[in-house]
């Protein structure tokens, strides 16, 4: 059975990745998960310097999901390079670094700093809904999205994934813009903007009033968008949004994803990635699928020959 997939020239041993911000840098998962079994660990967003993040409350549960407003709390790139890269390098997995910034210069600074580091992929976060500057401000405007992609691509030494926001009218417009800007791959979807109100206190639950909705509740939206983007650009697609099982992973790949990322499920079960991999293998065995790449985008073929 072949599980290896290639994303922008980087070969992953299997299509299971982690969604940034749900796996830290892997340390908290080591007691429960064999990090060697993950295709690529995509770490929590890193900025050029330490970010404090938003005041609490930052998390609230919703039906079949959760809303977070962490605000990209991170210790900054220097601490990350010193502590997290050596930690992850002990394992046989690829390292993807999610880059955060408030300005184009800040994104560029992080990519430049990583140019000499032993990491495999960069993921440009232009879709975080929880920071006022940067983040989603770049991700909802095709011109700005292309601009920041191009600027980072110029200094990057690793293939560049751009993470797309679903909080747009037409996600394919942004996907095409970052393709034109030089992206090597796209990942989607980031969280959907949502909110919850405490009806007893008559106020918003999250300190920021709104945050990013994730979890199985958003999966159908993600499947639709992955399908649209996979058919709109000539780039590898990393699909994510509410993946809880191997069957969910298969669904994303059939929609057109070349690899998938597990997000919220990690927080509910720190062994989620391993279980999803095992379930994916079981599915392939039962359906006699030799190569996982054979299921990528199969819905298109089905549509042509009814």
């Amino acid at each position, binding site marked *: 059975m072949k599980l290896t997939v290639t994303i922008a020239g980087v070969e992953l041993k299997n299509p299971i990745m982690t969604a940034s911000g749900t796996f*830290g840098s892997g340390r908290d998962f080591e007691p429960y998960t064999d990090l060697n079994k993950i295709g690529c660990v995509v770490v929590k967003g890193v900025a050029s310097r*330490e970010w404090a993040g938003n005041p609490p409350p930052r998390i609230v549960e919703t039906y079949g999901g959760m809303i977070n407003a962490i605000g990209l709390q991170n210790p900054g790139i220097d601490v990350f390079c010193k502590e997290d890269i050596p930690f992850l390098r002990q394992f046989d997995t690829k390292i993807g670094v999610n880059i955060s910034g408030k300005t184009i210069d800040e994104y560029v600074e992080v990519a430049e700093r990583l140019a000499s580091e032993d990491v495999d992929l960069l993921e440009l976060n232009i879709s975080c809904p929880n920071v006022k500057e940067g983040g989603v401000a770049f991700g909802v405007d095709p011109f700005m999205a292309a601009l920041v992609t191009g600027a980072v691509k110029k200094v990057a030494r690793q293939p560049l994934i751009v993470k797309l926001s679903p909080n747009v009218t037409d996600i394919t417009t942004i996907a095409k813009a970052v393709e034109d800007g030089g992206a090597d791959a796209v990942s989607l979807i980031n969280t959907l903007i949502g909110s919850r109100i405490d009806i007893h206190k008559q106020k918003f639950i999250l300190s920021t009033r709104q945050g990013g909705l994730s979890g199985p509740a958003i999966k159908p939206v993600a499947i639709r968008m992955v399908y649209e983007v996979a058919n709109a650009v000539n780039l590898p697609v990393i699909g994510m949004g509410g993946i809880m099982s191997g069957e969910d992973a298969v669904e994303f790949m059939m929609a057109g994803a070349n690899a998938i990322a597990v997000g919220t499920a990690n927080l509910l079960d720190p062994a989620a990635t391993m279980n999803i991999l095992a379930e994916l293998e079981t599915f392939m065995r039962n359906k006699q699928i030799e190569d996982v790449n054979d299921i990528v985008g199969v819905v298109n073929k089905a549509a042509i020959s009814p």
Partner: protein
Amino acid sequence: MNQSINRSRTVCKIISNRPLVDQVFEIILACPEIVKKVRPGQFINLYCRHSGRLLPRPISVCEVDLRNGHLHLIYAILGKGTEEFSGYKAGETMEIMGPFGNGFNLDSSDGNYLIIGGGVGTPPMVELCKQLKGKKTIVAGFRDNPYLVDRLKQYGDVYITTDNGSAGFKGHVVEFIEQRGLKGTIYACGPAPMLQGIQAYAKKHGLQAYLSLEERMGCGFGACVGCVTKVVADTDTGWRYKKVCKDGPVFDAGEVLFP
């Protein structure tokens, strides 16, 4: 996600699940492996059966029964998840994970302790009192109906306060300790305003104090960075957010910056 259960979550049998007072339940779970690891002040993630309720409910450990391998947890019905728990019957099973958090520092050499609990912040004081060696003065505050009083009495002098005066001192625990001028190394768990009052009291009287904080949590094991609290730090601003689930829930009172 059946396999996952073996690796991270533990399926355990419910020994009993009964109300102590209105809206407050004690659930006893059989989980010998977890019981062996628990330290006072740590918490356990309880998972709902309802598939729409994804996040764990973190509940502090009230007591461990090492001999029987039983875990005693006390929860108040505060929402749909805890309401679901209250319907669980003895003999059924539930999924849990833990223990998580740092727990209380038991190395204090003082030998004279002031143990303070407020509402559902009282349960963790039972196992703490059991394991702390020395003289213990215990103050527990409740809105109206006190619980756990008899269990706490095994370990020291117990004073009760209630908001409405239905039992013990009428008023808040901080008012009580101020009136009595109680002293000792403080261990406290309860709502933030109470802990803030205790922090001020400890500072005024030069007492060492440990505060167990509460915050809305996501995962419970440090990954999501959802449950943070502001602490004094060597940064440009003079503070940084620490994780309540992993760096806490117990913090030195001197480092906590209440909003």
